[in-house]
């Protein structure tokens, strides 16, 4: 499987991303925490640049035991990236569309060799 150079590991800080072009294909590579994640850059909705928008924590609405709402809050654990065309949100750890988790972006493997980070296309 061909590998495409992404960046030097030291250049990819937590929260950074790169868009890798491989012929007609485009892959978004994210560094989130200590992990790398890579997904197709084509939104499952209308083909927008899914990996090029904001990264933003998932919005939650926690409920009290009596089922009353505690209001809206940002998740302390779950992070999404957002297609800038229409706002489709994807789980940065899985590539699943959070509105319908049966929809999932194509996932790519990321490998680190020495100081270099590669995505397997």
């Amino acid at each position, binding site marked *: 499987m061909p590998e495409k150079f992404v960046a030097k590991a030291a250049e990819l800080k937590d929260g950074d991303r790169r868009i890798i072009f491989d012929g007609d294909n485009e892959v978004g590579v994210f560094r989130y925490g200590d992990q790398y994640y890579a997904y197709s850059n084509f939104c499952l909705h209308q083909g927008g640049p899914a990996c090029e928008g904001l990264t933003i*924590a998932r919005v939650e609405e926690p409920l009290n035991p009596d089922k009353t709402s505690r209001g809206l809050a940002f998740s302390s654990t779950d992070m999404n990236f957002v297609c*800038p065309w229409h706002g489709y949100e994807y789980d940065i750890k899985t590539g699943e569309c959070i509105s319908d988790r049966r929809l999932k972006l194509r996932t790519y493997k990321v490998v680190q060799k020495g100081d270099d980070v590669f995505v397997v296309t």
Partner: protein
Amino acid sequence: MEMLAERGRRVTVEELNTTKLLAHARRQAVQRKYDNMLIVDCDAHHYENENYDQILPFMENDVLRQLSIGGRALGRRGLVPSQAGFTQDMGGRVTRYPLRSTEKTEPGRIRDVQLGERWMDAMGVDYSCLFPTGMLNIGLHPQKEMEADLCWAYNRWLTEKVLPESNGRFFSALCLPFSDPEQSLRHVETFGHRKGVTGFMVTTVRNIQVNDNALMKVYRAMEERDLSLSFHSGPNWSEPVFRACNRFLSVHALGFSFYNILHCTNWVINGMGERFPKLPVIWIEAGLAWIPFLMQRLDHEYMMRPSEAPVLKKKPSDYMRDMYYSTQPIEIQDREAMECTFRMMNAETQLLYASDYPHWDFDLPSTIYDLPFLSEKAKHNILGGTAARIFKLLPRNDKQRENLKKFGNLAA
């Protein structure tokens, strides 16, 4: 540019470049050979409020003009009613909203024309019907004389400055000051013949009865001039019934359909289709799912209560099938339901592609082109052929001419 993400975190985002943002749209256009088919976007927008310095001097009334221009200098920028809570950008998730001001354009040409060319070229669109954004709320203005003067100024600016600079790629259905039938008639008589004017548009966020006798002369004037009448919908969180909604999503999902349902019902039940059979009527930006709903509701009631709709000579749904509808925002989640909707409305001859760009829920031509249940003729008709026939738009190359002719859409 820095944008605020969650919990106060700031993220750096590059300046907006529409061509770059829509690079994937351009790829779709090339893959699908859109250059070979005429594509007409019957509902695109610009932000006219960013051009008030050019628009407001066209206001006719000295006092209203001074109130508008002087008020802006004092920071009173709300010339048209706006609504709290309208977060189309979703907190910056739809990046073209907060970044819009960062996009660079060439000096000396109207910025909105340049931006329009970029998105049309990216999507493969040949012509766009340009509508305002903030002025879609003009029907909520409490002063009908201000509504009329703002429409007048906008329509002059659009027809004298914007459309001439677009090399014919922008056309428009101009804003009607619908609260004032006399002024509406004057607008039709004054602007109806101008280049690039294909008709007039009524913003449907209002509570006027479209069947009011005072409006008949306006419709007649349009029909006599071979113009079209568009009803452009919108949401209104201040409408008493929508005060019960707590999320923008809810108001948006219901509101756009609601106002077109409301006015289309009055249009059909009062026999406007019988009164003005040659007037093309277009219902814009309400999606499509409301159409089979309303057809069924009105037919059901009409069969039992024909005495309340004595002008009708056929069922309400038949009149609805005589009118036109824009595609956006097309509800794509249930393909079978969509196919049923297309069948019920005779989409092949009555449906017109619309992008609604640059608004947050825009649709690309591929939303139509990629539908597996559509014939080649239906795709050509919906994406531009039918619009070319209604609005008398000419092909931009020989292949488009060939296809328009093949499917009976070549304007004389």
